[in-house]
């Protein structure tokens, strides 16, 4: 039986290509389907980029692995089958990954979005809220009703950051804007997302965005109802030829190449690696025709200011929903403070939890 396994492995390696050097096996674990046209899709695009750009790398992946008993077993199996670099791509995998990392010190782990490290576990993420801020600027310039709608899954820091950044961006160019938030309590429930979009539009929102698994549902409803939309996770402009403004999208590939390279050549660092607009790990998508040339320029100027570090999204004053000043003028929130964000800013209408 062992022999049969070896033959199977050998044939699959041979089929892949004729490797010159020993292949590094890289494993990915996704919390949802890799074809969700959202978060997991973006991570998987990174995996494909890795395969395309590094000749000596072979990848395997697991999809639909919940953040429970399953993930630790899956990581162990990966390691036992020879995977040397593991990408646990969901936040809730962190503690499970730390446990497996401790057991296998020679294997490298790169966790997406966590705030804990160990000797062989680093974290990577991208400050996509910068792109959400810029999308907010575009929304603030475009809206006629001064009401924006945000369809959100769960009140976790990554989502709160995006709601707040989007709102701050919009209010930076249009102080009268408010953002209404509806929680769907699920990462993926197309019916609920569509109905939430309808509810927001009927209440007067004329720009919709969201943070759920896939932007397709709310973007399509917005288009059908003749309002504007801002995407998230993946470019959904083809679903809204009329109303698409812009969107915030991931680009994990180059970052993942760096991580795997560092594991291969021994320069691996146990750190919090964070990409941003400048490194290109988080990007602004192309603009839709609904954004005027002038407004596009305003957004791009602001983008330049962020890249030049002249402007920071989380520079004070940051004011909470109830008017409390959380960050005073002149102060800037640290990485850790933004990554554990647990408040909604002034201008957001909706419950926190």
């Amino acid at each position, binding site marked *: 039986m062992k022999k*049969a396994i070896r033959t*199977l492995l050998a*044939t699959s390696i041979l089929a892949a290509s004729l490797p010159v050097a020993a292949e590094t096996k890289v494993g990915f674990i996704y919390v949802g389907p890799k074809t969700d046209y959202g978060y997991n899709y973006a991570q998987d695009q990174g995996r494909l980029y890795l395969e395309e750009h590094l000749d000596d790398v072979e990848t395997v992946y*697991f999809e639909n692995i919940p953040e429970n008993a399953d993930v630790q077993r899956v990581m162990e*199996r990966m390691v036992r089958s020879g995977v040397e670099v593991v990408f646990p791509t969901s*936040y*809730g995998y962190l503690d499970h990954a730390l446990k497996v990392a401790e057991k296998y010190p020679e294997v490298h782990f790169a966790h997406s979005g966590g705030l804990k490290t160990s000797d062989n576990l680093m974290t990577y993420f991208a400050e996509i809220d910068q792109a959400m801020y810029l999308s907010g600027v575009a929304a603030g310039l475009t809206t006629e009703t001064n009401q924006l709608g945000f369809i959100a899954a*769960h009140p976790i*820091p990554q989502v709160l950051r995006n709601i707040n950044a989007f709102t701050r961006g919009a209010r930076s160019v249009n102080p009268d804007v408010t953002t209404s938030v509806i929680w769907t309590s699920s990462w993926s429930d197309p019916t609920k997302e569509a109905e939430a979009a309808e509810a927001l539009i009927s209440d007067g929102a004329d720009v919709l965005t969201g943070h759920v698994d896939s932007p397709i549902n709310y973007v399509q409803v917005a288009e059908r109802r003749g309002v504007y939309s801002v995407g998230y996770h993946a470019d959904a402009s083809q679903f809204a030829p009329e109303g698409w403004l812009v969107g915030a999208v991931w680009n994990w590939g180059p970052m993942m190449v760096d991580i795997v390279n560092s594991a291969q050549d021994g320069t691996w660092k146990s750190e919090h690696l964070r990409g941003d607009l400048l490194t290109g790990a988080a990007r602004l998508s192309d603009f839709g025709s609904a954004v005027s040339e002038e407004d596009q320029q305003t957004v791009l100027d602001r983008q330049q200011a962020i890249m030049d570090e002249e402007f920071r999204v989380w520079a004070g004053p940051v004011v909470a929903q109830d008017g409390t000043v959380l960050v005073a003028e002149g102060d800037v929130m640290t990485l850790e403070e933004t*990554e554990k964000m647990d408040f909604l800013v002034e201008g957001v209408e909706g419950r926190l939890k």
Partner: protein
Amino acid sequence: MTTITQPFVRFGLRLLGGPTGAVLVMTATFVVAALAFFAINGRESIPLFQEMVMGAFGDSYSFSETLVKTAPILLTALAVALPARLGLISVGGEGQLYLGALFGTGAVLAAVDQPGWLLMPLMLAGAMAGGALWGVIPGLLKTRLGVNETISTLLLNYVGVLLVSFVVHGPWKNPNSLGWPATIEFPEGAILPQFFDTRVHMGLVFGVVAAIVLHILVTRSRWGLGLQVSRSNPRVGATAGISYERNVLIVMAVGGLLAGLAGIAEASVIQNRLQDGLASGYGMTGFLVAWLAGQHFLRIIPLSVLMGGLLASADSLQLYAQLPKASADILQALLFIIVLAVASLWARRREA
């Protein structure tokens, strides 16, 4: 030759005509179906099937992980099988599991500073109370208002999952969890014992013991006899002093209690805290196993191990063949369909 072998042949035939034959036919059909499924999807069937078997039972690690999966399946299957003894069709294992985790965690949070000898029993008591509550409610709805228990347990599953989401995102969220929706980590005293440096935990022991005790109670005790009478004719039972209503509440409560234990075991041992996504469909799998076992408590034990193995070994499908996760669901469904078909046909043949 004929005279010597004839009794053996006859014995063999009789064996094949009975349950053993049915099991053989089921196994063979399932293996063929699985191989065909792999082949249709362009995979090398036999090595992949071997890989799956290895992934479930091939080495001590794989087997230990199979047992980790087994524990919640076993307990939720019992939560279905016990009410079925009274003719009740409960599909509420998932919700009861979540409620057990919820109440058990509540007990841990309330008594977090207490020593382990006090904390652990409190946690388990809380879990049992929570699971039992989610069993008693449909029981009461059934006996008092005549609400169909299948429907009420079904609806309450969704409520149970949402209640856990509510507490971990809201009142019970650990303020130091960096914003992540989860309770504080359980203290040492609230972690159920594990065995041999694996993740196999007390939950499995609870399940096996419960299955044996239930089997004895139902087959040997007065109460068990009462269940049978009550089930076949509640009115006859009532004249003999057996209250159908009370028995409904008892079986629903005890079933829920067991599923509740599964919930707290997952939270305590696997997650070390309460958070979303505690279990993924254990309730439905448990339901399946209970039916595969014909609601027979002892048969549930090996079948839970097999089902745990099937689910745990489905990793191989992704790892070696890059088949999507859904292929495990398809195999699970095929297995269930085959077992149902063969078992029903066998039963019909025996009647005929």
